[in-house]
């Protein structure tokens, strides 16, 4: 469809939430139902939608979905410490909202202040606490998603469930392969004092072993980062909680590190993190994306490098 015709078609259907013209058409919906309608239009009129977190870029035949008009914090369930936010809320705004109430997302300071919750989650929530650091804790306990055919999918908040496959990791870190995240139930944590300690190890294996045993002994670090260069491996451990628990955990960390030749140091220089960055959806999840999106609304980027038919 010609860009001008497409623009008019979108304005007729969605009103003044449609901005721009030609190759820079943007839709700034004010409700989830408008997003659903946009996706249904895309299925009917065969255009692509670039959504937060996806790798599809604006251009001919691509409409950009902008979630700026969905920035609200819908509810803070203070008893459960669960924050229900819209996908367009900025992560930094969410964090400020929580900090004012003595809570935090617990993510490290690498958060991009301009990043929306939708974009952050679709990219795998970089900076968030590793699940291995506290298997009882979680960041995302529920999601609101719009699937490529316009269906609204709600994963209700629950601390844990055993009702089939867990779809959350297919969306969080999924780079919008299966749909766009339009809301999330985020679990906040108490913003308590932290103590950070750093150990230097001769080898990566020794540092990895120390990290495993720290976790194995039941220490739940706020974060534990392994960085390395050709000559050393550095383990940066951050412990939080009440003074008594923190001191006991720090003593355990010190013992584990010493047993593996770890030497306390002040060196927290920014070596490259050794963790593998999230690589996007797997081949089967991409295939699932195609099954859910036969009209290829979410774009051709998802099909790259696939061998699975």
């Amino acid at each position: 469809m010609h860009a001008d015709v497409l623009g008019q078609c979108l304005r007729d259907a969605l009103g003044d939430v449609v901005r721009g013209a030609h190759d820079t058409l943007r839709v700034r919906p004010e409700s989830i139902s408008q997003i659903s309608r946009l996706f249904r239009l895309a299925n009917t009129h065969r255009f692509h939608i670039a959504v937060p977190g996806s790798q599809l870029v604006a251009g001919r035949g691509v409409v950009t979905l902008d979630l700026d008009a969905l920035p609200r914090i819908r509810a803070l369930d203070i008893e459960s410490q669960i924050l229900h936010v819209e996908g367009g809320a900025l992560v930094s705004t969410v964090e400020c909202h929580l900090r004012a109430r003595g809570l935090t997302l617990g993510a490290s300071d690498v958060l991009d202040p301009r990043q929306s919750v939708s974009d952050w989650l679709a990219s795998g929530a970089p900076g968030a606490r590793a699940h291995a650091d506290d298997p009882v804790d979680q960041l995302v306990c529920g999601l609101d998603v719009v699937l490529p055919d316009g269906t609204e999918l709600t994963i209700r908040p629950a601390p844990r469930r055993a009702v089939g496959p867990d779809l959350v990791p297919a969306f969080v870190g999924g780079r919008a392969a299966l749909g766009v995240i339009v809301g999330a139930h985020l679990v906040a944590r108490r913003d308590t004092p932290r103590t950070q300690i750093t150990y230097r190890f001769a080898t990566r294996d020794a540092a990895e072993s120390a990290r495993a045993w720290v976790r194995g002994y039941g220490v739940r670090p706020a974060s534990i980062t392994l960085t390395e260069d050709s000559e050393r491996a550095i383990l940066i451990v951050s412990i939080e909680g009440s003074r008594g628990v923190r001191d006991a955990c720090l003593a355990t960390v010190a013992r584990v590190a010493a047993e593996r030749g770890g030497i306390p140091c002040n060196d927290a220089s920014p070596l490259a993190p050794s963790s593998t960055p999230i690589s996007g959806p797997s081949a089967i999840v991409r295939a699932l994306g195609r099954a859910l999106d036969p009209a290829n609304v979410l774009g051709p980027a998802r099909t790259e490098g696939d061998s699975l038919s």
Partner: protein
Amino acid sequence: MNAALPESLRPDGGAHEALRRDLAALVGDTHTSTATADRVAYARDLWPRQVIGVRAGIPAPAPPAVVVWPAHVDEVAAVVRYANGHQIPIVPYGAGSGVCGGVLPTRGAIVLDTKRMRAVRAIDEARLIVDAEAGILGQHLEDRLGERGFTLGHFPSSIYCSTLGGWLAGRSAGQCSGRYGKIEDMVLGLTCVDGRGEVHRLDLEGDGRDLIPLVVGSEGILAVLTDARLRIAPAPRTRRFASYTFDTTESGLAAIRTMLQAGLRPAVARLYDPFDSLIARRNKPPRAPSGIIEGPAPTKPLSPGLGARLLTRALRSPGALNTLIESLPGPALGGAMLILVWEDEPAVADAEVAEAERLCTQAGGRTTGEEPARAWLARRHSVSYRQSPMLAMGAFVDTMEVASPWSTLLPMYRAVHHALSPHVFVMAHFSHAYPDGGSIYFTFAGAAADDESALAKYDAAWRDALRAVVDAGGTLSHHHGVGRSKAPAMRREQGAAIDVVRALKSILDPNDILNPGALIGGADDAR
């Protein structure tokens, strides 16, 4: 002799034997069976609805055609490819201890028992990782780890009669989940065979990041699990115990929530409602000191005497009994009992015990010492063995474990209690707590004049309770899974997520041969 067999178990003119011969060529002649005893044994799991059926004289409503015991992932793949080519349903089978009808073959199906795949392949002591095959029994895995000074930290009450593969398929939780997490929290990698017979080796750092959470919990409808890589921990050097009594369930829950949100991680935090507390207080530790792992306590069969008859009669009209107990103030029953167990390093555990003491006291708890927690630990696996005597006396017993955020946990408890009350006698405890919510474990018992009426009552109780869970904002299952028992209610909770799972199944199992009817329902839905 054949005339004495139920119709479903009579010979089928040689088709089963022909199928068995084909499968024998893939896994070996002695590793297949069409024997009646095997077909009956593999026709169900421990779903109480089926157990009532057995009592009514229906041991195997839809027995499988053949049972196979492959020994290797390649043999599993060969069996699945064969079944896919011939469009024969396959039911992956661990130890059959599930309670939701997760393994309920359709007639003519192949049951694929994984128990010959039971090796512990490697224990990486430096990185705290174990590689084990899916068919290993839970206690055997724990024993092997214990010999080297480690633990998986996964102790479901079925640990003696459930497999690693079964745990993964159903998203199992162990009693120490507060320290080690649920089974899905321990998985670092796995191997599985999809419905086309393709083998997937998944690593959490690679393609497994999003696929492992999709396969784990899929209850055998997407793939057959053959082995897993799991995080382990050093075996605890010591344990710490504490218990408290609260006037109300509400104040006990507030104490647990405050502890979890303050970052404390007791391995066990179990709060019994006042009536369940009354029962739990009768548990005394065994006289002889025992080790870390204790066997199930023997259960005394109830003779069909006056006591049993009176109990059965009372269970036929549970409403009045539930109302009476509900009307009693908590303190009249002795209050709500909280037991806590820690398995951390001694210094960490001691610090957490001190912090827990402060928070529990603040929430109105009165310490009752270590003994109730020690008594629970000593008897912790025996609960699964208490159902048989009730069934033998003509009643039925079942359990239901649901979860929700803290803000809806107590309203859900009340709503489910209310929904169950007209049908069955009900009590509950709260276990498996998290910073954002927790799980409720309902135990209920009922009876009726005959088995047909018992089934009707059983079905009505489940239907009303599941509806109450979803309406209250909870999830249908925390760790038992869905099987056939909860599949009819799945759409109500999961909505469009069911369609996403169906789409995934169409990719991994295009002919719908893997455990059809489980989890997301199907044509053979048992209810």
